[in-house]
């Protein structure tokens, strides 16, 4: 569904992404995981073509999108940004309707089909009760749901999500992950940046672990996120335990403290 081939990106002479290749299958929920500064968000932005990579290919259903215009890419890939507050109080339904922009032919705005698609997205995410409220008056979790609904209304087969749970409380985090999971079970492929190894283990079908020199490991989360891999990227602070059939990453308890961490650095 989504395939990256030898992607390179540098920013002001600094190499951020080196030789990134991987694939996300149809209906797969894939996590992009790695420490700060390894270029997870940069990679997502390259795929959505918010940044222009200098070498490599991005393929969607075996079609190379390197030369496509923003309008064509927007029909294939939806990007869910981190929730933020815009300056104008658009209503939730208006924000979601904006997701239909790539499909609007005429200059005057949404057609009946666009409105229907937006309604479907609202129902699917289950946010009818806030659809008539101003987007700016919502909580962070609600805003993230709205952005998800907007991406859904966009009607693409691929969703890119930039840390969708980063500012949310635990209940909202789990809710967002479950909705994303449910969407992938309907055939959408999702690629999600995240910082929480447990979320990856609990919800994702695949994980791509990014280090400073590119992809470290890539595959099934339970197999990829071993204590060894985690300690390689996080400097030995993790321990992986099993609870019933769930894997959990917890802090290592062998006398690790702030003072040893400064020594290690």
């Amino acid at each position, binding site marked *: 569904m989504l395939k990256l081939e030898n992607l390179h990106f540098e920013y002001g002479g600094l190499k951020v992404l080196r030789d990134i290749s991987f694939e996300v299958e149809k209906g797969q929920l894939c996590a992009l995981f790695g420490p700060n500064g390894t270029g997870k968000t940069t990679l997502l*932005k390259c795929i*959505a*073509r*918010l940044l222009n990579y200098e070498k490599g290919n991005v393929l969607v259903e075996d079609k190379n999108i390197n030369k496509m*215009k*923003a*309008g*064509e*890419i*927007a*029909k294939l*890939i*939806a*990007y869910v*940004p981190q929730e*933020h*507050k*815009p*300056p*104008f*109080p*658009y*209503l939730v*339904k*208006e*924000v979601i*309707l*904006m*997701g239909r*922009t*790539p499909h*609007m032919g005429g*200059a*005057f*705005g*949404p057609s009946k089909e666009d*409105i229907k698609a*937006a*309604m479907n997205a*609202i*129902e*699917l995410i*289950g946010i*009818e009760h806030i*659809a*008539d409220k101003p987007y700016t008056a919502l909580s962070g979790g609600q805003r993230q749901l709205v952005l998800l609904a907007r991406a859904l209304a*966009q009607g693409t087969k691929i969703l890119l999500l930039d840390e969708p749970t980063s500012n949310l409380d635990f209940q909202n985090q789990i*809710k967002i992950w*479950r*909705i994303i*999971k*449910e969407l992938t079970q309907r055939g959408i492929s999702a690629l999600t940046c995240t910082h929480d190894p447990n979320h990856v283990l609990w919800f994702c079908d695949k994980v791509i672990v990014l280090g400073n020199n590119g992809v470290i490991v890539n595959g099934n989360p339970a197999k990829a996120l071993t204590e060894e891999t985690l300690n390689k990227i996080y400097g030995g602070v993790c321990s992986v335990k099993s609870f019933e059939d769930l894997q959990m990453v917890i802090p290592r308890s062998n006398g690790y403290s702030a003072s040893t961490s400064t020594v290690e650095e």
Partner: protein
Amino acid sequence: MNNISFEHKSGGLVFSNRTKVTFIIALFISLTITALIAITRGAYDISVIAVYEVILDNLNIATQTNSLFNTIVWEIRMPRILLAIAVGMALATAGGVYQGTFRNPLVEPFILGVSAGAAFGAALSIVYPQYLFSIQLSAFMFGMVAVFGAYSLASVRGQTPLVTLILAGVILGSLFGSAVSILKYISTETGLREIVFWMMGGFYYATWSDVYQIVPVVTICTIVLFIMGWKLNVLSMGEEEAKTLGINTERTKIILITLATFVTALSVSVVGIIAWVGLMMPHAARLVIGPDHRFLLPSAAIMGAIFLIICDTIARTLTTAEIPVGIITSILGAPYLMYLLRTKKNIFFG
């Protein structure tokens, strides 16, 4: 996973714009009524019936023979009112477009130095009439020069952040401001008087030829801007988001800003500097009709037209002498911004 049911039925969720369309129609009717009342007011007392007789005569519907009435109503008042409508629409639409594009409800066309540039152009042409074709053309040229100067000064690697843009506007504004001061200093008494009067803004020189110049261009440009309302909605959510929603952001931004600046510079070149309309009208319209630019821009435009007709009518009837309309708009506009500053602090930092 069962707690998330995907089987909701939409309970009374409607996407309807009927109220907004009704509101715009109501505004349009108010504009017509305001114009019809404004034309009966003036320094020279003409009865309401006589005024409408003159209008009907010029529309070839009825006849009347008083040539003095004809001159006052058809040659003086009518162009003023039509020009006030066009300029009000232009400034308010431009303000709405600027606020949406720069994602800040407090910007207006003048922040990019249009006014300062245009003032310099006008002053230059007043002091050295032998070198430049006309005050209007010169004001228009330098207005555009100021904006494109500010825009290119603010561009960093293909991006134009709001803060640098405003700073560039301030820099160019002060540059042109001091140039105007030099011109005032070396100008003659009459020239100085003319510069000052021009900069205060007003419709006193309005003629039918101004109307023919301004009205068609403003109408076309504002209609194009209205049509771009949806794109402006998406753009106002942020440039990156707009791009991922398939908008060619750089091109859209350039079209929007160029058209908005163009109608502003055009208006300024004919009637001088009329402040506040571009800031207040879109803001007031947003409070009433909401932020959807497809409806916000036309509402702001009509409200701008009504506002300027009222201000101009006050300007020409309040005292026996003419008050520059820019003074009236400022007197009404400054308290509005004070009110915003005290009650809605968050929008200044939003």
